[in-house]
């Protein structure tokens, strides 16, 4: 067993990378590797980033810059001297991480999250295209567990006025709960308020309307797979609906609950990431439905305010073994079909 590891270690140094994602040692390569699909994701993230600045002030822009810079430098530290380039995807990771943070989070925590996300979520697995878990969510989960108070009880109300946050650095009004949390205590909040956003919440997650618009753009450009997004939404509505009808405490009305938090942002931008999602046709449906149902279950029953992040990480975790099982099942069915076909002529 020992020799096998050694061979792989030597092979890593000597063989030319076969995947198009990696490149050979070449001094003339630009620092940044352009990736067309990643550009599309970044375009889709622009409205969300702008809405974050409009709602919560220019501090959000600083958070985005700091988070992306930290993410970029982390990836650069890993690829420096290996002949590989920093991938465009690192900015998707950085931006998605900041989208899921409260706008009041201290800057150094943004840095910690971005470094953890890229180092532990992505580069340790060999870089772009090889990560097992969604890097941005790994970083966010790390922040969530480490700095619970900052991540779950330190929100700011949107800056009031027509100009909104465009004339302010940060919002002055601090609050301890988002509408998604108050909804669970049984307080009625109008659907329109929750849907349009402009409420306390994460940088990019308050407006369900924008998340849907940007998500539909991703679906249209075929960056995100509707075979994951649709079952996720159905799974959430189904599970939340059953819990609501069963009268579970803390279970809010399904449609309100769906648009209150960052669930839709999570579904369109994190859950559909192709590298970590299931790669099996049927598996994608199960994967999506699992994320939706689990988001609702964790949101209602656990100590955490929302379950989308944990649901997606759990789905990432079980996707490989599920795909393996489904492939085995497919193989068995193919063999059975062949046997039937062979026996057919009689």
């Amino acid at each position, binding site marked *: 067993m020992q020799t096998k*590891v050694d061979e*792989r*270690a030597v*092979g*890593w*140094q000597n063989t030319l*990378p076969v995947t198009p994602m990696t490149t050979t040692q070449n001094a003339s390569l630009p620092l940044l590797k352009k990736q067309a699909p990643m550009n599309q994701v970044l375009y889709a993230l622009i409205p969300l980033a702008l809405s974050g600045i409009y709602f919560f002030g220019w501090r959000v822009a600083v958070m985005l810059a700091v988070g992306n810079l930290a993410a970029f430098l982390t990836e650069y530290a*890993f690829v420096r001297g290996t002949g590989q380039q920093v991938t465009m995807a690192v900015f998707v990771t950085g931006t998605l991480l900041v989208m899921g943070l409260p706008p009041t989070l201290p800057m150094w925590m943004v840095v910690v999250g971005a470094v953890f996300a890229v180092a*532990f*979520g992505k*580069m*340790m*697995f*060999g870089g772009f295209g*090889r990560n*097992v*878990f969604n890097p941005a969510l*790994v970083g966010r*989960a*790390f922040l969530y*567990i480490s700095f619970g108070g900052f991540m779950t009880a330190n929100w700011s109300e949107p800056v009031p006025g027509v100009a909104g946050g465009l004339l302010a650095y940060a919002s002055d009004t601090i609050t301890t709960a988002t509408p998604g949390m108050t909804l669970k205590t049984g307080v009625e909040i109008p659907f329109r308020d929750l849907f349009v956003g402009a409420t306390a919440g994460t940088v990019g997650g308050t407006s369900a309307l924008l998340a849907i618009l940007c998500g539909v753009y991703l679906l249209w450009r075929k960056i995100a797979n509707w075979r994951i997004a649709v079952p996720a939404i159905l799974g959430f509505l189904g599970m939340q609906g059953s819990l609501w009808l069963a009268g579970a405490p803390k279970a809010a009305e399904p449609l309100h609950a769906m648009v209150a938090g960052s669930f839709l942002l999570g579904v369109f931008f994190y859950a559909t990431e192709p590298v970590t999602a299931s790669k099996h046709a049927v598996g994608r449906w199960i994967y999506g439905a699992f994320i939706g149902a689990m988001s609702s*279950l*964790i949101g209602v*029953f*656990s*100590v*955490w305010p929302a*379950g989308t*992040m*944990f*649901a997606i*990480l*759990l789905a*990432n*975790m*079980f*996707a*490989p*073994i*599920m*795909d*393996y099982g489904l492939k085995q099942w497919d193989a068995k069915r193919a063999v059975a079909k062949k046997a039937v076909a062979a026996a057919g002529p009689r």
Partner: protein
Amino acid sequence: MSELLYFLAVLLSAVFTSNILLTNYLGMCSFLAVSKEIKTSLGLGAAVVFVMAITCPLNWMVSAWVLEPLHLEYLRFIVFIVVIAAFVQVLEMIVERVSETLYANLGIFLPLITVNCAILGASLFMIIRKYTLAESFVYGTGSGLGWMLAILAMAGIRQEKLNQSKLPRGLEGPAIALVVAGIMALAFMGFSGMGGGN
């Protein structure tokens, strides 16, 4: 009916909320060593489920009917280990007779179940939580299933994903497995507080 629901809650909380591996970090050694292949993991996982489901009630009986009447509770650790070791020895003989391949695949790891801290841990948790005989059986099964679930997920990740990618030097094998286990534990934190929590 409510009794049944209660047993279901004990089972689910043992599988998810207080997963013996990902929230109590017990049974790590065999988890890291055997999770390279899905087939072997399935075998070891099934063995752990079986051993836990039997040894938990077995230890409960020994504890409640022998140790406590004789006021020998301080011997619990050593007696539990002896009970588990004896049971695993019997199981090993059965596996050798029934499935030669599984026996060869499990190799040293089946005897190692004897000292798998998760098995002893489950028996000790069962005493701390003052479960009844029936509950201890459900709890043992649930803990075993939770352990099996975790090792299957890990084996899936290692066989289907990590094997096919070139990892940075020095991170191959147990190193990256520990990183993955850490992130899996992060994900399992999501279950905290569910099912009454323990």
